[in-house]
């Protein structure tokens, strides 16, 4: 009896090893993913409150007003959901790809986990006390309670620890596997953590050296332009970190799920390198309307932003090529007949597929916004909010959802049941319809002039403002559908984490094409890519930053505008 049981355990362990499953690492990833989806649940309800308010259906009480809700919604979804999901997902990847996390790396990630949580709690308390309604962008001269910024600083430190852990893990693997390429999904992870590491430096300088001394009253004024510039060097890069995370699943996981092969390994790695090198400088496209940046510099940055579009277009091309090739291999025929061969009933495919399709209008909108004249029309209107619910709320988040249907079972040692898969498919369609309604009406009402970050007002029954109402109602309808989607999704995640039947789930990583050319070794020279990245950053930032600092107006005192 005993022997049999031992044997069973032995076999199980072996099977786990084969699948690259490490219980302690899985626990780490599970904790990160759990926090991410709790953030989605809470953030989603706050979003609903905002949607209902904007439609004029709900007046928020004075003790929890629109701007408190909005600050919390932004922070929960833009920071907590994405950061925790990305780290949970990529740490699971590193563990699976690279033979388990090193004990010290695991420890770093746990310390990072708690430092981030403490930071987050510190940031939330002043929001609840109505001392920090500064939105997730916390632009000076709006000033929150100092504790809010200390919380942010701790979150930065926590993420840094995870970056350093990932670097140690990858470096160690490379030492033991000389001359080999880092497995593709871990290569994505490396790119993401490199970007995170450097992007966070900008916001750390902003918070630690500019904002904190200022809110503590040690200095009288703050250079608003410099602060905004540092924020967007970070903020824009964060956007592309989500994108790169989602893209990793598109390139590597989705082909496996549909039973196909991965697209060119070399070009995939080139896309990652290109995004790492060119990314940070895109930050200026969030400041097209800012004064104090001269036209030549702005013109240069339109160029920089559009340059990032190039790897994105390559991605679109690559993925549709993979789909078509796979479907044709399965007997799909005709110009569009091959579509029927795709596994539409598999949520692990459906969710990221719709996410990719959403990226087409989302990317087009982005190109429009980075054009100076067009941005004048939509800047600070609901259009922008529509844009990032399409890019982030659909392209990125739906990919995360799609990932969850295999990642959560994998790290929980359970399986995806047909019922949960079905639930996932339903969830996906609800989310799609909800986001189309909400984001579509946001875009349109933005063109009609409805401002973002503004609670409901008819502006004294002004005719223009009244004309927004039908769209704002549609926005609320979409928001209501979305909250149903949120509930289903969070239910699915926790079901898969704790209640689904035990069993092994595969970590889906597609193989290369058989006749693929060998990837050259220079793709592994991260030192070089980082140097190039720093050069590009220097070229983009030295001129405008010196101008902003040397020709600065007197600094601004802190304001509490709410």
């Amino acid at each position, binding site marked *: 009896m005993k022997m049999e049981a031992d044997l069973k355990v032995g076999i199980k362990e072996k099977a786990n090893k084969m699948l690259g499953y490490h219980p302690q690492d899985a626990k780490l990833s599970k904790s990160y993913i759990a926090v991410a989806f709790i953030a989605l649940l809470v953030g989603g309800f706050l979003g609903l409150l905002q949607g209902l308010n904007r439609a004029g259906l709900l007046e928020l009480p004075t003790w929890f007003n629109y701007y408190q809700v909005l600050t919390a919604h932004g922070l929960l979804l833009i920071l907590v959901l994405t950061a925790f999901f990305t780290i949970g997902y990529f740490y699971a990847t590193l563990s699976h790809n690279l033979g388990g996390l090193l004990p010290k790396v695991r420890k770093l990630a746990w310390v990072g986990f708690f430092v981030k949580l403490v930071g987050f709690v510190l940031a939330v308390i002043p929001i609840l006390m109505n001392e920090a309604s500064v939105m997730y962008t916390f632009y000076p001269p709006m000033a929150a309670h100092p504790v809010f910024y200390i919380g942010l600083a701790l979150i930065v430190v926590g993420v840094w620890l995870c970056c350093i852990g990932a670097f140690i893990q990858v*470096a160690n693997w*490379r*030492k033991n596997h*000389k*001359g080999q390429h880092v497995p593709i999904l871990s290569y994505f992870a490396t790119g993401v953590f490199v970007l995170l590491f450097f992007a966070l430096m900008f916001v750390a300088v902003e918070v630690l050296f500019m904002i904190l001394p200022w809110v503590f009253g040690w200095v009288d004024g703050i250079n608003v332009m410099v602060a905004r510039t540092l924020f967007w060097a970070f903020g824009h890069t964060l956007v592309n970190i989500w994108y790169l995370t989602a893209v990793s699943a598109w390139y590597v996981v989705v082909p496996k799920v549909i039973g196909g092969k991965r697209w060119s390994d070399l070009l995939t790695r080139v896309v990652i390198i290109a995004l790492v090198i060119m990314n940070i400088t895109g930050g200026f496209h969030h400041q097209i309307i800012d004064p104090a940046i001269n036209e030549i510099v702005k013109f240069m940055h339109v160029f920089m932003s559009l340059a990032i579009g190039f790897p994105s277009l390559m991605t679109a091309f690559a993925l549709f090529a993979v789909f078509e090739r796979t479907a044709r291999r399965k007997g799909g025929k005709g110009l569009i007949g091959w579509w029927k061969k795709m596994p539409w009933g598999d949520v692990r495919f459906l969710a990221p597929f719709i996410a990719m399709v959403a990226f087409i209008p989302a990317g087009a909108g982005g190109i429009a916004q980075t054009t100076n004249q067009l941005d004048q029309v939509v800047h600070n209107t609901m259009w922008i909010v529509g844009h990032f619910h399409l890019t982030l709320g659909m392209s990125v988040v739906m990919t995360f959802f799609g990932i969850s249907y295999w990642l959560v079972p994998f790290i929980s040692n359970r399986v995806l049941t047909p019922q949960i898969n079905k639930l996932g498919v339903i969830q996906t369609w609800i989310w799609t319809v909800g986001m189309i309604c909400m984001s579509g009406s946001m875009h349109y009402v933005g063109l009609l002039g409805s401002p973002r970050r503004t609670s409901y007002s008819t502006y004294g029954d002004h005719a223009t403002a009244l004309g927004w109402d039908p769209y704002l109602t549609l926005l609320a309808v979409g928001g209501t559908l979305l909250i149903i989607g949120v509930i289903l999704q969070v239910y699915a995640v926790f079901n898969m984490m704790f209640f689904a039947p035990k069993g092994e789930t595969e970590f889906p990583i597609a193989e290369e094409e058989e006749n693929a050319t060998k990837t050259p*070794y220079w793709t*592994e020279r991260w*030192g070089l890519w980082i*140097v190039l990245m*720093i*050069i590009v950053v*220097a*070229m983009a930032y*030295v*001129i405008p*930053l*010196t*101008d902003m600092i*040397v*020709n600065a107006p007197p600094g601004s005192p802190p304001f509490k505008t709410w």
Partner: protein
Amino acid sequence: MNQSFYGLLLLIFLVAPPVAHFMESHMVIHMHMQMPMLVIAGMLMARFFQKRFPTFFEKWNSNGIPGILLFVIIVVYWMLPRTMDEALTTNSVEVFKFISLPFLAGVSLRDSWKKLSSLGKNIIIIGFTVLFIGLGWLYIWSPVQLCNNYLIIEQVTLGWGFLLTAIGMIVYLGYNFFIDPSAYE
């Protein structure tokens, strides 16, 4: 052959009046983009000369030191505010810039770098790092305008460009010192 051709194309591009005019309109772009790109153009074209005149390089630059000295002299010359000014006001000096940076500095850098010992390479990089810190300090905190053609704000910007480049080189030196690539490759 191919890379020499691209080097030539790059040189022609840089010399083209609208490009040159734009790049010279900012002091920092003039010194930190145009000039290095001229050197890079020369480095690409070096292949052509090495193939064409192998004995010349063998005879005059067998250990790389004469070449690197020539490179240092040319590059340091072009870092003087006075020479930049002159390039903008006197046509012949401008022509000299377009010739000296690619053909004297770029070609000799390419031919010499591989021949230097790692000590030699480090001396060069450290030397330039110190020089860049000095120049950064000079340009940022100089109380007067050093160039007739550029305003003080341009000068300060250039100073920061120098300092950041120096920081970049220090990072590189540290990276080289602490990390042994052969442990990974």
